[in-house]
């Protein structure tokens, strides 16, 4: 008995691993059982809270409408209907809105990456004389909650200053404002700040200019941070609701998030739930693939979005 318990404990130095409960505490039966109970309860609770709604969504998307209405909590449906997905995809034109979402995500991503990398490069590496003022001006926009700019930004889209173009019902209305993310610019600038200057100097000795430096040295070195910004850009587009609702009044241009609420009254329940499941798929896949980015960041500044 005793030897088995000993063997289970990790061989590595326990000092590094310790938290609130000490090793000697963990050996006391009372502490061990209480902690085991709390642990188990937490696991069950999180399974219900975190996975439960998604499982309900998955189950109901293949369940006939009447089943979901009458017994929403039954674990086993009275019939399976995988055809709901096909119907949602083609008959309710979820495919079209899904593609809209994809286009909006791709465009927003490109704009965000271009603005953040070129801007971050100029402010961090090239550093023109007024770069401090510019950095401060970018930082200042973080203080202004984006949502408060709703009305003036909307009026700007209706009539873009100087060029006088109306961007309503154009994807550009979502793409361009997405680029004005101070968070992205400052995150990337800070990353560039930490690249050793010696690398740039060495490249310059070899005759590299500003463009060459950016393209062949800075960009390849900053792949990890660009990855982070990219994933959050795509997830952000998928989550966005109010802004595309305002600037894309034409249903043909709208992304899934805007379209789903208006589809509900005219769509059979089972097909509608299948549509919800389709809309959830991409963010969940992204999350599962890039889990580490989400869970090990713990970046406080990332939580404030404007």
């Amino acid at each position: 008995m005793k030897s088995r318990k000993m063997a289970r404990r990790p061989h590595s130095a326990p000092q590094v691993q310790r938290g609130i409960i000490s090793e000697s505490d963990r050996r006391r039966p009372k502490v061990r059982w209480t902690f085991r109970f709390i642990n188990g309860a937490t696991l069950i609770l999180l399974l219900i809270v975190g996975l439960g709604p998604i499982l309900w969504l998955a189950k109901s998307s293949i369940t006939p409408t009447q089943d979901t209405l009458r017994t929403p909590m039954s674990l086993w449906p009275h019939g399976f209907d995988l055809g709901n997905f096909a119907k949602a995809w083609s008959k309710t034109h979820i495919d079209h809105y899904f593609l809209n979402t994809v286009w909006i995500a791709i465009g927003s991503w490109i704009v965000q990456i271009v603005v953040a990398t070129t801007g971050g490069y100029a402010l961090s590496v090239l550093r023109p004389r007024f770069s401090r003022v510019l950095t401060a001006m970018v930082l200042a926009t973080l203080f202004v909650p984006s949502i408060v700019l709703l009305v003036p930004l909307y009026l700007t889209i209706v009539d873009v200053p100087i060029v006088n173009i109306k961007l309503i019902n154009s994807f550009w209305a979502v793409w361009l404002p997405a680029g004005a993310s101070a968070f992205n610019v400052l995150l990337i600038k800070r990353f560039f700040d930490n690249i050793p200057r010696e690398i740039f100097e060495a490249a310059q000795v070899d005759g590299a200019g500003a463009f060459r430096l950016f393209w062949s040295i800075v960009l390849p070195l900053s792949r990890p941070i660009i990855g982070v910004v990219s994933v959050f850009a795509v997830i952000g587009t998928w989550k966005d609701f109010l802004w595309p609702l305002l600037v894309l009044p034409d249903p043909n241009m709208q992304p899934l998030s805007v379209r789903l609420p208006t589809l509900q009254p005219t769509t059979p329940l089972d097909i509608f739930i299948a549509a919800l499941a389709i809309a959830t798929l991409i963010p969940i896949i992204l999350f599962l693939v890039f889990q580490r980015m989400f869970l090990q960041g713990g970046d406080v500044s990332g939580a404030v979005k404007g």
Partner: protein
Amino acid sequence: MSAPSGSTVAVRGKLERRRRRIRVSRDGLSTLAFLLPLLLVFGAFSWYPIVRSLVMSVQETNLVSTLTFVGLDNFARVLADPLFSKAVSNTAFFALLALIIGYPIPLVLAVIMSETRRYKSLLSALAYLPVVIPPVVSVLLWRFFFDGSPNGVFNTILGVVGLGPVHWLGDSGTAMPSIVIEATWAGFGGTVIIYLAALLSVPRELYDAAEVDGASIRQKIWHVTLPQLRGILFITLILQLIATSQLFTEPFLFTGGGPANSTLTVLLLIYHYAFQNSLGGDYGMAAALSVMLAAFLAVFTAFYFWLTRSWSTTS
């Protein structure tokens, strides 16, 4: 002999790194080319609208008639609107409820999870899952859960224990608490992750020292862990207040502000002023209310930045 001289060069290089600039055509055309996307996008879609919102708040605007300066008239009209006080008190009520229900949960979870050894990553992934679901999908999904009929999801569960049926979103007394429950569910995972990272940075020696003094587990949490998390607890508090005062999607899709305006929030009111006015948008009033909300939030945001800055310089 060569090793020490090499290291001094490296040290000197490190010291000078901050001050040295790259001498590729500083202020030149190429620098401008790199700055151009940032200047254009921020100029048109960030700096200009910020200035414009201030200007608009003292103008009468509805896109049709010409702009006229009206002084503080827009602010006066907003303040006189009976819906304004309703929206402010609703938003404050939501913030308070979200604080009572939503603030302690992530902390308790994170403390438990940080002690877990086996399923730590599974637990944090489970907690974070609701965060990645698009808010619109969450709200539409929770509309089924909040179904007021006895056959609704939550009412079925309550029925097992002999309670209910509760009208959830259909009753002005329970509508806001229902939204708080959904919003808490949608957001707690992000805060758990922040706390988990913060818990890692609590110095292990403090626990050792507390044990030498004979502290129990509860005493260690109370006298070591929580005081060490003080800074981050305050930051998440401010972040939560900033987020809750901007509540929009949930009441907009759940209830549209009803029943009887019981879930009308400040942001919903801005939206109503600007975009749901039969007489054409009253952008002046919307801008005035936006400026007021921004001024209120700016206090919190400034405080937040001041805190995180002093935080990052010490660690």
